[in-house]
């Protein structure tokens, strides 16, 4: 979606709050972060779905509410959409029904999360899962996409030409994961864009911006 989250290159945000060095300033932010992690197991949802839920917040809210409150509100959206909680329960905080957790069963305990956290997620597929359409050094152009859902090709590179800098291998595809359509494994590439091709002659002649882009986003230039 061409949403407010896609802000790369936008003007008007003022100076960077460089002095805001902290991760958490309130205890509730820690709880919100941990809740998003833990609820992902049982609701369930994946990271792309959580990101997309944040993107779907009203743009005025997206720009003005606390980062960790956005995480919590995204969880609430996903819980309601998954049917494990009702709008009324989420508004009042009072349980009115027990969700059918089905195959997911019990929520993970401390030992389980402690074991899984250092492992992370399985995001890649064997190299022979898909042939690459592009080779390193090839010029590519970002497709003029109009994805209504989650996508990871920012507007600022759309229709722009760059060069394949690295073939990263075969990865699950965020757009498909966010739709709940499975991994749609495909090559992902690091693509180098000349700053002037993105921002015009005012940009630095030798500046470059690198993005990791799935094959579905690219055409040969």
């Amino acid at each position: 979606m061409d949403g407010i989250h896609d802000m790369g290159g936008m003007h008007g945000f003022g100076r960077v709050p460089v002095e805001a060095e902290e991760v958490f300033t309130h205890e509730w932010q820690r709880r919100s972060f941990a809740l998003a992690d833990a609820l992902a197991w049982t609701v369930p949802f994946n990271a792309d779905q959580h990101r997309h839920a944040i993107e779907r917040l009203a743009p005025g809210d997206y720009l003005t509410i606390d980062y960790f409150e956005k995480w919590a509100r995204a969880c609430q959206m996903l819980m309601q959409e998954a049917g494990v909680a009702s709008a009324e329960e989420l508004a009042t905080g009072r349980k009115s029904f027990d969700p059918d957790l089905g195959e997911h069963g019990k929520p993970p305990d401390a030992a389980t999360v402690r074991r899984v956290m250092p492992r992370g997620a399985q995001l890649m597929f064997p190299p022979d899962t898909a042939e690459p359409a592009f080779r390193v050094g090839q010029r590519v152009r970002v497709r003029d996409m109009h994805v209504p859902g989650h996508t990871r090709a920012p507007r600022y590179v759309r229709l722009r030409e760059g060069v394949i800098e690295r073939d990263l291998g075969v990865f699950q595809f965020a757009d498909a994961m966010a739709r709940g359509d499975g991994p749609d494994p495909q090559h992902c590439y690091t693509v180098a864009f000349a700053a002037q091709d993105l921002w015009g002659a005012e940009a630095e002649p030798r500046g470059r911006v690198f993005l990791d882009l799935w094959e579905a986003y690219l055409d040969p230039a």
Partner: protein
Amino acid sequence: MPHDHHDHDPLEEGAALRVRALEELSVAKGLVDPAALDAIVEYYERETGPRNGAAVVARAWSDPAYRDWLLRDGTAAIADMGFTGFQGEHMRVVENTEEVHNVIVCTLCSCYPWPVLGLPPTWYKSAAYRARVVREPRAVLAEFGLELPETTEIRVWDSTAEIRYLVLPRRPAGTDALDADALAALVTRNGMVGTAAL
């Protein structure tokens, strides 16, 4: 209270209550185990963070073979130090040199290499940083107090997929005699994001 939002935001006051209500509801509905929440917070606060990244950097400065490995296969070389997990499954390390300065961003959300840097600071998640560093990196770096020579090529890495980036800063002069622990103490988080030099 240096949040990335406006002082007049009324949501602030209620956020703690709302998140507590969400936790209590989630527990009541059997969706989360409160002890798991404690474990998650404790894990990320104690076992991830810039000290991990600093150890990686110090080893790369001290050991040319490790440095080569780190730049060639960041994921494996960082895993060798024991730093693995969510948001660090696939790592690339980009090296600052006299000619090239690297800086990391996630314009679309807040992707950041958790195992080696912990969770991102507020400024990294700010709209201003996300919007501007891809367009005018030199001006943004100057706001951090980092004035680069005009001849330096600036490379901006926008974390749009599953790779997470770490900047390998330049080793400060006059540190030949230092051991890895002493070197690691010189390495800052902003240095590993690319918004500071060391």
